[in-house]
């Protein structure tokens, strides 16, 4: 069609549409005359008029949305760019899209990178880039991707800059990292080749500026190709602008930011040493599967790069040779003056390490196994076990120290000469290397440096924020609990270390006071959803720091954090511990659910406040925790313990003990290795079932699981006392005293042993000392009562009555009231005694009052028959106070009575 002809048609079309359709045909025929073709054309077009309504009236929104949603416009397969024909997209990145393409002239495959236009606007930059690319190509280095051509094509939509490079069959290091663990040998190979590439480039004055796993290609034959030299220079918006808006999952690598050197992060000029830093980041990530500097936002990552020291490699891969840590630390030095100054230095260090490992592998094959050497085939780069139970095996003879942990992710298995029979999938084994490393680290330590006792001081709540007190206390206790399970280690108990809460402590003084060789201190700070925890392990002989670490975590990571800290300290401590072969479970597993864990911690915190209201609240929190995590064994154990606590005080035993038992069994069904649950069950058997043998078994189990568990020691001691096994009881109480020297509990028990073994004068002396300690605390009423009781039996009636009154002034407990009644009775004040008896009867109408109490006053008054009646009633109530029937001195006048003997037998005690 010619323009003139079309003009003619248009005019007719337009005029026709203006006319009445009925008259149109005639009019048109007249206009066209004998130009039949014209008439036909116009008529044909008019035929489309009814369809014209709305045609092209609305924009192609759906296609626009799809076509425009990609930030960078992409060319499409089949498109030709100069002599290159695009075939498929190989990858997309901030620096453009890379296509696989065919060079139609040379008949070879190339990778074609199209640079986004925004990167090529600055001609000067483009020119410099060309220059560098030429220089890099001239190097002809095997580890540097060969650039064939840098060019541009101009199409109607503008100029497109492209880079044609050799096409490398393989995958990026990022893809390799995603796929799974690498061997140490591979890691060293990749970093060595990359360092070689960098060394060559730096020699020519070219800095890569963007070393990251995405820019390292791994060929199937093992050859590494470094991509995109100098390309980063083209990027105009390299500086991160919107710091706090980019959120990632913690621990994930976030784009290029994670690999920036501190000077890059500051936006300063960079030189070769910046590449060395970035390569250090890559190395760290390959070894640990973690970014050395991470954070929730880009800003956090940058702060981390600028300010924080990365966690030591051994946190994630404890079996790595120590020299690797040195290499990584040096590459990641904040000050570039402290880094390797040239890539060739880093290259040499890595080569040397690799050669050493190869040499030792050969020696090993030859039968001469150097202890603690690491194999190049070691799997690395595994995600560290997050919140796993860590099993420990400590061998006596200083030989392999093995820490195993069931992990949720695929684990690696290090083979020994004598492989342990452990399921491969669920175990992480810190190999002999650990022992070797520790020996190396501590060299020829004198035997006197052994650690056999440690104190974990309450972590300081740095903000003095009562809202997070449970966090600082909770972390302290969780850590203590983890360490308590090491049989070779005495871990100072809660009651003692918590007396140091809020006090400045000199490690050396503490070492003397508590007879410990090491002390752990910590600080906890919370900022919104983040917590910062600083932990230090110090030697109390000279106050030197053995280890220190700063953690920045999200509250959600709390369960993992405490396990992590415990693991790290354990690793540090093990070479210093006394031997002993045993297998224990470290770090009772908390659920990954941070909310449940926090409820648990808060519950624990309140539990140890020892007041009724707080313990009731604690129960509520534990119950909330199990509502969130029905399988939360530790929380179930705590519920059981709260009920056993309530059973003797606030709830009828018939109500509390079944609940305690149910919770304990629930806990044990989840995890039979929980000392707490065994303790709760022991108490149920002890106080409710009167199953002495069963209780003993459970106490023993709890103490095998956690030899430092003072709560269990104390309850067990109480049972031994009731059975009249005073010598055994005393040994346990001494152990408790050793672990918890500042707590009144062991002293209380020692006094009890003296009282029930009828050594009243010694009991009184001991109780007087104990009373000093507990003076002013909520516990003081117990000491006053016990002292009063001992005084009464020592026939010092008035002093005894006075102590009992003091006890009642603090806490008007029925138990004490009955003792006062007994005191009045034996002191000859029968009326006063009867008055108290009446008071107890009156109380009993309102609430549960143990019949044992009323039997007691009767005994004071010499009313034996009535006393026996009350005791029979107590037996029917299954009052746990009855358990003292075998040893309580005031029952001595009844011991030959057959009714009393029958009662004793019923309780399971020998007359």
């Amino acid at each position, binding site marked *: 069609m010619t323009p003139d002809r079309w003009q003619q048609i248009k005019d007719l079309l337009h005029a026709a549409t203006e006319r009445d359709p009925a008259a149109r045909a005639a009019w048109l025929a007249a206009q066209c005359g004998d130009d039949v073709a014209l008439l036909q054309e116009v008529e044909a077009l008019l035929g489309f008029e009814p369809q014209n309504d709305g045609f092209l009236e609305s924009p192609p*929104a759906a296609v*626009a949305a799809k076509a425009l949603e990609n930030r960078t416009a992409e060319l499409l397969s089949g498109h030709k760019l100069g002599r290159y024909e695009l075939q498929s997209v190989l990858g997309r990145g901030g620096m453009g899209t890379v296509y696989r393409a065919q060079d139609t002239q040379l008949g070879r495959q190339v990778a074609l990178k199209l640079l986004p236009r*925004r990167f090529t606007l600055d001609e000067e930059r483009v020119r410099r880039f060309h220059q560098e690319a030429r220089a890099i190509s001239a190097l002809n280095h095997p580890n540097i991707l060969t650039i064939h051509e840098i060019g541009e094509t101009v199409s109607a939509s503008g100029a497109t800059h492209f880079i044609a490079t050799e096409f490398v069959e393989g995958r990026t290091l990022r893809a390799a990292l995603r796929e799974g663990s690498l061997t140490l040998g591979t890691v060293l190979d990749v970093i060595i080749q990359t360092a070689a590439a960098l060394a060559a480039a730096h020699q020519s004055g070219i800095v890569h500026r963007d070393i990251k796993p995405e820019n390292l290609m791994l060929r199937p034959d093992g050859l590494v190709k470094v991509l995109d030299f100098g390309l980063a220079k083209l990027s105009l918006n390299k500086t991160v602008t919107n710091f706090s808006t980019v959120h990632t999952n913690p621990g994930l690598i976030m784009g290029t930011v994670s690999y920036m050197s501190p000077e890059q992060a500051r936006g300063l000029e960079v030189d070769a040493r910046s590449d060395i830093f970035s390569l250090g980041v890559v190395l760290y990530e390959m070894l640990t599967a973690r970014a050395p500097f991470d954070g929730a936002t880009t800003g956090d990552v940058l702060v981390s790069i600028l300010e924080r020291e990365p966690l030591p490699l051994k946190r994630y891969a404890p079996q790595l040779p120590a020299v690797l840590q040195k290499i990584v630390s040096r590459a990641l030095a904040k000050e570039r003056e402290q880094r390797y100054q040239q890539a060739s230095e880093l290259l040499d260090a890595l080569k040397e390490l690799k050669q050493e490992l190869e040499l030792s592998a050969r020696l090993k094959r030859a039968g001469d196994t150097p202890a603690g050497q690491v194999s190049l085939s070691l799997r690395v780069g595994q995600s560290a076990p997050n919140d796993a139970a860590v099993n420990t095996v400590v061998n006596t003879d200083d030989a392999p120290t093995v820490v195993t942990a069931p992990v949720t992710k695929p684990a690696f298995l290090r083979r020994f000469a004598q492989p342990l029979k452990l399921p491969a999938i669920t175990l992480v084994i810190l190999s002999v290397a650990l022992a070797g490393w520790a020996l190396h680290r501590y060299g020829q330590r004198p035997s006197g440096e052994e650690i056999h006792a440690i104190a974990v001081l309450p972590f300081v709540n740095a903000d003095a924020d009562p809202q997070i007190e449970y966090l600082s206390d909770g972390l302290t206790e969780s850590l203590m609990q983890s360490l308590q399970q090491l049989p070779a280690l005495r871990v100072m108990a809660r009651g003692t270390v918590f007396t140091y809460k809020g006090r400045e402590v000199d490690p050396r003084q503490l070492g003397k006071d508590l007879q410990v060789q090491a002390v752990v201190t910590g600080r906890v700070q919370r900022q919104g959803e983040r917590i910062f925890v600083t932990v230090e392990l110090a030697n109390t002989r000279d106050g030197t720091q053995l280890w220190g670490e700063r953690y920045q975590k999200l509250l959600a990571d709390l369960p993992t954090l405490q396990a992590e800290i415990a693991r790290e300290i354990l690793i540090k401590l093990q070479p210093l511990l006394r031997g002993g072969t045993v297998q224990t479970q470290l770090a009772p597993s908390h659920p990954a659910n941070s909310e449940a864990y926090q409820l648990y911690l808060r519950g624990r915190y309140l539990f140890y406040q020892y007041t009724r209201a707080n313990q009731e609240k604690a129960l509520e929190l534990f119950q909330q925790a199990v509502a969130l995590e029905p399988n939360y064994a530790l929380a179930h154990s705590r519920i059981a313990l709260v009920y056993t606590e309530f059973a003797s005080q606030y709830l009828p035993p018939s109500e509390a003990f079944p609940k305690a038992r149910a919770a304990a069994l629930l806990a044990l069904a989840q995890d039979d290795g929980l000392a707490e649950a065994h303790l709760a069950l022991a108490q149920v058997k002890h106080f409710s079932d009167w199953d002495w043998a069963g209780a003993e078994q459970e106490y023993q189990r709890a103490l095998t699981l956690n030899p430092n568990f003072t709560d269990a020691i104390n309850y067990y001691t109480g049972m031994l006392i009731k059975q009249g096994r005073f010598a055994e009881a005393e040994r346990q109480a001494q152990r408790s005293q050793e672990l918890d020297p500042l707590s009144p509990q062991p002293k209380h028990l020692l006094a009890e042993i003296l009282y029930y073994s009828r050594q009243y004068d010694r009991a009184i002396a001991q109780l007087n000392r104990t009373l000093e300690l507990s003076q002013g605390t909520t516990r003081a009423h117990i000491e006053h009562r016990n002292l009063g009781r001992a005084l009464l039996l020592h026939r010092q009636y008035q002093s005894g009555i006075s102590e009992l009154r003091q006890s009642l002034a603090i806490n008007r407990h029925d138990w004490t009231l009955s003792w006062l009644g007994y005191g009045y009775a034996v002191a000859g004040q029968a009326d006063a005694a009867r008055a108290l008896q009446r008071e107890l009867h009156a109380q009993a109408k309102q609430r549960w009052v143990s019949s044992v109490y009323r039997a007691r006053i009767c005994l004071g008054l010499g009313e034996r028959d009535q006393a026996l009646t009350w005791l029979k009633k107590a037996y029917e109530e299954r009052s746990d106070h009855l358990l003292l029937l075998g040893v309580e001195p005031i029952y001595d006048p009844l011991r030959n009575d057959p009714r009393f003997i029958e009662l004793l037998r019923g309780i399971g005690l020998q007359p």
Partner: protein
Amino acid sequence: MSIPSSVNVTQLLLAWRNGEATALDELTPLVYDELHKLAGAYLRHERRGHTLQTSGLVNEAFVRLIDQQVDWQNRAHFFGIAAQMMRRILVDYARARQAAKRGGEEIHVGLDEALDEAEAQSAELVALDDALSSLAQFDPRQSRIVELRYFGGLTIQEAAEVMGLSDSTIEREWNTARLWLRREMTNSE
């Protein structure tokens, strides 16, 4: 910064009008990127993307890139470029879709409500692009008007202003062009 100042773009626009052919080369990627960026921002807020209005994009690109004191001729040039760019983006995409359908590599895979609509529009867009190219061979002005109206999203009045023609002329051209395009597209099916 990568966002070109409006002065810059305006100057390029003037330079191009004054016969500097290379100015267009520089201008094009700027407009191109801006359209993408705007669309991106727009789509982030309109999750479904149904309501993406090309006219809105072009107008906003104009406001952002061009000094508002510019005369109507420059304005016309700008919209001319923008509409052309939009056509290119959309048609490239649509062609790729069609290619994918014919057994080529599926590049954009997505399951959302816009999918079927996009499918249908893609086919139409490819046919329209071909037809428009044919039309341009004998009536480039009319082709441009369609481009402005359909891809640039301009109203009759805006197109008239940009082209320096009367509203009625634009309307007449628009209507007859559509008749021709319609037939052309129908025949090519």
